[in-house]
C-alpha cells in the first residue's frame, strides 16, 4: 500500500457519503428503500476508514502524508489549493466519524422507521458524514472552513428535520446563525493568514511562522489570529458564550444528536484548535483556556437541574467540550485528543442510549416520567451505565484515562505558572459530572416507574439499535487505548500514535514551560510524554498521582451524592431546592443566557433592522430623493410626521415641482394685460440687473 493508495482511499472515504447523499436525495421519492444504499455506502466507508487507519498506524505511523491540487488561481502568484493531510490524528478521527456515523445509520433504521421523510433523513446523514470527513482530512484552513460551513448546513438540515415543529426550525436557525457568529471570526482569521502567508496550508503557514514571519509583523496579531480562528471553535464546539445553540439542537432526531451534537461535529472545534495549536501564543492559549473553563463549568451547573434526558446530555456535552478546550489552552495537547475520541464514543453511546429510552417510551423525554427502566431495557441500561462510568472518570474506562490526563495537566499547569483556577474548576466539574450523570441514570433506570402506562408498553429496542450501543460501550473500555488500566502514558494511543505538537509561534510568545531551551525535546517527533520542556515533564510526573487520586475521589463522591439524593433519598431534593431556590432557578433556566441574548442581540438586531426598514422607507426614500429636510424636520417637531411624510422622490419631486408650477401658473392668468405689466416689470428688472 503506497501513500498514493492511502490518498485514494481517503478520497473514497470523503466522497462516498456524498454519493450516498446525492443518490438518496434524488431517488428518495421514487425508491422507498433507497436508504439502504446510504447505509451500505456508510458501511463501505467504515471499512475503508478502518483499513486506512490500520495501514497508516501500522506502516506509516511516523509519516505525514500530504497531497495537494490546485483549485483555482487568480494570478501567477495567487493560487488556491485544496489538499489532504493524513496523519495519525486524521485516520483516528476518520475512524471515529465513520464508525459513529455508520452506527447512527444502523440505529436510525429502526428509530426513524415511521418518518415520512425517511430517505431524506439518510441523505442528510450522508452529507453530514461527507462534510465531517472533509474537516478531518483537510490540510488547509480554507478547506476546513468550507467543510466547516457544510457541517453547519447539515446540522441545520438535521436539527430542523422535523421542521413542521416551530421549535425544531427555530433551533436549526439558531444553530446556524450562532455558529456563523463564530465563523465570522474564523473567517477573518483565515483571511489574515492568507494575506500574510499567501497560502492556506497548515504546513506552510507553520513553516513561515517558525521562520519568523508574523501577521502584520506583530506578536499581537499572531495572538489575534489564533483567537479569531478559535472563534470558529467557540461556535462549533458550543463554547461559552455561544453554547446556547447546542441544547436547543436536541430538537433534532436523537441519533442525530448522538452523531452531530455529541460525537463529531461539536468535536470539530476542538479538532480545529488542535490543528492550529502550533501557531497559538501564550495569550491565545490563555484565552482558550478561560473560554474552555467557563464552558466546562457553566453547563455543568445547568446540567444539575435539567429534567429532559437529552438536555442533560447536551449540557454535559458542552461541559466536556469545555474541558477539552480548556485542556488545550493549558497545553494538554495529547490528552485533549484522547478525551475527544473517548468522549465521542461514550457520549454517542449515551445519546443513542437515551434514544433507545425515548423510543421505548414513545417519545417521552422528561426523566420525571421515567424510572425503573432497568428491567425493561437491560441492554440499554448496561451500555448506558458503562458510558456513564466513562464520563464520570471511573477507572477501567477510557474516560478515566483521558480525564485523568487533563486534570494532571491542569495540576502541572498550576504548579508551573501558579495559576490554579483551571485545576480547581477541572476537579469541580469532575465532581458535578459524576453527580448529574448518575442522577440521570438513577432517575431514569432505577426506582419505580412514574408513568405506569408508558412503562408497561416499554420494551427493549430491536437489534439494529442495541448493537451500536454495545459497540460504543465496548469502545469506552480502556483496553482499546492502553494496556495499563491506571496510566495511559505508555499506551499506544498516547505514546505511539500521537506525536508531540509542533510549535511554531515565536519563542517569546509562548508559555515559559513551552519555550525551547537547551536540552528540551521540542521538535522530537518521537513518542513519549515529554512534550515541551524538562520542567513540564517533571511537573506532569509530579501531578499524575495526586491528580488521579483526587479525581477518583471526586468522581466517587459525586456518584455517592447522586445515590444519596435520588436512590436512597436520604436528603429530600425538593427541600434542598427550596433552600437554594435562587440558585436552582438560575441553573434550571440555564443562567438565562437565551433570555439575555434574545433581549439584547436578537431583539437588538431585529429592532435595528425594523428601524432601518422604516428609515429606508421613510427617510432615505425621502431625503435622498430630495424630500426637503425642512419639511421633514418641521413635521417631526409638529409630531405629524407620518401624515406629512411623503414617500419618495417621485412624490416629493412632484410635490415640489408642483409647488413651483403652482407659483408659475399663478401668473398665467389668461389676462393679456397682466402679462404686459409683467413684461414691463421684467424689462425694468433686467435693466437694473445688467446695468453695470
Amino acid at each position, binding site marked *: 500500500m503506497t501513500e498514493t493508495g492511502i490518498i485514494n482511499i481517503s478520497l473514497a472515504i470523503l466522497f462516498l457519503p456524498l454519493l450516498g447523499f446525492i443518490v438518496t436525495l434524488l431517488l428518495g421519492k421514487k425508491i422507498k428503500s433507497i436508504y439502504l444504499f446510504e447505509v451500505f455506502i456508510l458501511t463501505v466507508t467504515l471499512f475503508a476508514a478502518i483499513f486506512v487507519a490500520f495501514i497508516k498506524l501500522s506502516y506509516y505511523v511516523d509519516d505525514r502524508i500530504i497531497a495537494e491540487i490546485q483549485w483555482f488561481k487568480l494570478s501567477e502568484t495567487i493560487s488556491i489549493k485544496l489538499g489532504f493531510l493524513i496523519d495519525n490524528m486524521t485516520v483516528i478521527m476518520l475512524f471515529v466519524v465513520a464508525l459513529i456515523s455508520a452506527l447512527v445509520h444502523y440505529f436510525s433504521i429502526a428509530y426513524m422507521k415511521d418518518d415520512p421523510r425517511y430517505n431524506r433523513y439518510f441523505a442528510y446523514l450522508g452529507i453530514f458524514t461527507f462534510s465531517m470527513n472533509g474537516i478531518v482530512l483537510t490540510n488547509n484552513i480554507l478547506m476546513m472552513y468550507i467543510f466547516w460551513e457544510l457541517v453547519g448546513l447539515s446540522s441545520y438540515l438535521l436539527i430542523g428535520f422535523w421542521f413542521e415543529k416551530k421549535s425544531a426550525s427555530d433551533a436549526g436557525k439558531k444553530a446556524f446563525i450562532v455558529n456563523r457568529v463564530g465563523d465570522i471570526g474564523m473567517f477573518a482569521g483565515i483571511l489574515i493568514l492568507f494575506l500574510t502567508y499567501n497560502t492556506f496550508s497548515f504546513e506552510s503557514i507553520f513553516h513561515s511562522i517558525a521562520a519568523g514571519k508574523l501577521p502584520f509583523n506583530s506578536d499581537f496579531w499572531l495572538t489575534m489570529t489564533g483567537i479569531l480562528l478559535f472563534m470558529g471553535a467557540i461556535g462549533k464546539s458550543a463554547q461559552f458564550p455561544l453554547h446556547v445553540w447546542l441544547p436547543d439542537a436536541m430538537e433534532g432526531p436523537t441519533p442525530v444528536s448522538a452523531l452531530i451534537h455529541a460525537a463529531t461535529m461539536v468535536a470539530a472545534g476542538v479538532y480545529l484548535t488542535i490543528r492550529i495549536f502550533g501557531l497559538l501564543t501564550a495569550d491565545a492559549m490563555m484565552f482558550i483556556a478561560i473560554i474552555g473553563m467557563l464552558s466546562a463549568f457553566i453547563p455543568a451547573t445547568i446540567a444539575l437541574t435539567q429534567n429532559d434526558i437529552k438536555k442533560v446530555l447536551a449540557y454535559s456535552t458542552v461541559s466536556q467540550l469545555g474541558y477539552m478546550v480548556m485542556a488545550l489552552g493549558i497545553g494538554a495537547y495529547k490528552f485533549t485528543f484522547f478525551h475527544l475520541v473517548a468522549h465521542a464514543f461514550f457520549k454517542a453511546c449515551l445519546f443513542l442510549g437515551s434514544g433507545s429510552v425515548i423510543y421505548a417510551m414513545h417519545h417521552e423525554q422528561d426523566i420525571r416520567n421515567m424510572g425503573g427502566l432497568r428491567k425493561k431495557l437491560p441492554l440499554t441500561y448496561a451500555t448506558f451505565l458503562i458510558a456513564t462510568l466513562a464520563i464520570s472518570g471511573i477507572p477501567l474506562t477510557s474516560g478515566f484515562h483521558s480525564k485523568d490526563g487533563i486534570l494532571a495537566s491542569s495540576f502541572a499547569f498550576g504548579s508551573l505558572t501558579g495559576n490554579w483556577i483551571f485545576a480547581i474548576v477541572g476537579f469541580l466539574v469532575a465532581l458535578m459530572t459524576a453527580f448529574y450523570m448518575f442522577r440521570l441514570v438513577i432517575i431514569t433506570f432505577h426506582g419505580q416507574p412514574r408513568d405506569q402506562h408508558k412503562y408497561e408498553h416499554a420494551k427493549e429496542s430491536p437489534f439494529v439499535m442495541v448493537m451500536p450501543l454495545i459497540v460504543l460501550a465496548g469502545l469506552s473500555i480502556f483496553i482499546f487505548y492502553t494496556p495499563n488500566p491506571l496510566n495511559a502514558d505508555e499506551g499506544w494511543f498516547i505514546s505511539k500514535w500521537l506525536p508531540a505538537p509542533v510549535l511554531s509561534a515565536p519563542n517569546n510568545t509562548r508559555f515559559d514551560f513551552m519555550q525551547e531551551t537547551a536540552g528540551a525535546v521540542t521538535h522530537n517527533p518521537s513518542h513519549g510524554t515529554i512534550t515541551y520542556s524538562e520542567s513540564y515533564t517533571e511537573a506532569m510526573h509530579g501531578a499524575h498521582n495526586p491528580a488521579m487520586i483526587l479525581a477518583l475521589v471526586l468522581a466517587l463522591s459525586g456518584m455517592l451524592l447522586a445515590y444519596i439524593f435520588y436512590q436512597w433519598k436520604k436528603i429530600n431534593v425538593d427541600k434542598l431546592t427550596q433552600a437554594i431556590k435562587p440558585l436552582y432557578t438560575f441553573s434550571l433556566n440555564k443562567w438565562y443566557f437565551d433570555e439575555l441574548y434574545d433581549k439584547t442581540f436578537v431583539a437588538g438586531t431585529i429592532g435595528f433592522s425594523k428601524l432601518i426598514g422604516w428609515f429606508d422607507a421613510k427617510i432615505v426614500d425621502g431625503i435622498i430623493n430630495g424630500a426637503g429636510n425642512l419639511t421633514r424636520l418641521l413635521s417631526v417637531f409638529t409630531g405629524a410626521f407620518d401624515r406629512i411624510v411623503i414617500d419618495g422622490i417621485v412624490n416629493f419631486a412632484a410635490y415640489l415641482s408642483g409647488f413651483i408650477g403652482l407659483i408659475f401658473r399663478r401668473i398665467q392668468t389668461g389676462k393679456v*394685460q397682466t402679462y404686459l*405689466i409683467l413684461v*414691463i416689470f421684467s*424689462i*425694468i428688472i433686467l435693466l437694473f440687473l445688467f446695468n453695470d
Partner: protein
Amino acid sequence: MYDIIFYLFAAVTLVSAFFVVTNRNVVYSAFFLLFTFFGIAGIYVLLGADFVAVVQVIVYVGGILILLLFGVMLTNKITNVEIKTGTINILPAAIGVGIFAGVLLAALINSDWKTLPAGKPLPTTALLGSMLIQDYLLVFELLGIILLIALIGAASIARREKV
C-alpha cells in the same frame, strides 16, 4: 417762436394723449386721439418732416382714426351715449410705467447725443420718393405685401361666414 410752437404742440399732444388713456368714454378718447395725432403732425412739421406730417394727417386722421371710430360704433349700440368703459390694473400699471418712464427719461436726457444744430428744413418729398424706389425698394415692396396680407386677413376675418 419756434419754442412756443413746440411747447404748444407738445402740450396738445401729451394732454390729449393723457385723456386718450384715461377718459372713460370711448368716443371721447377717440376724439382726443385726433388731437394727439394733430399735435404729432405739428411736431413733425417742426422737425422739418413735411411729407411725413402730411401722411400722418392723411393716414392717421383720415384712415386709422376713422377705422377706430367705426370700431367703436360697431361694438357699441349707437343709442348708448354713455359709452364708458372701466379701467384695470391702474396701480401696477402706474408704478411700472412710472418707473419705466423715469428711467427712460433719465437715460435719454443724460445721454450724450451727437447733435448738430438743426439745419434749415428742406423739402423732403422728392428725396423720399427716390429713396423709396432705390435704396429701400425692397422695404417698399415688402410693405406692399404687408398691405395685401392685411387686406386678405381683415377681409377674411370680417366677412360673413357661410354656415
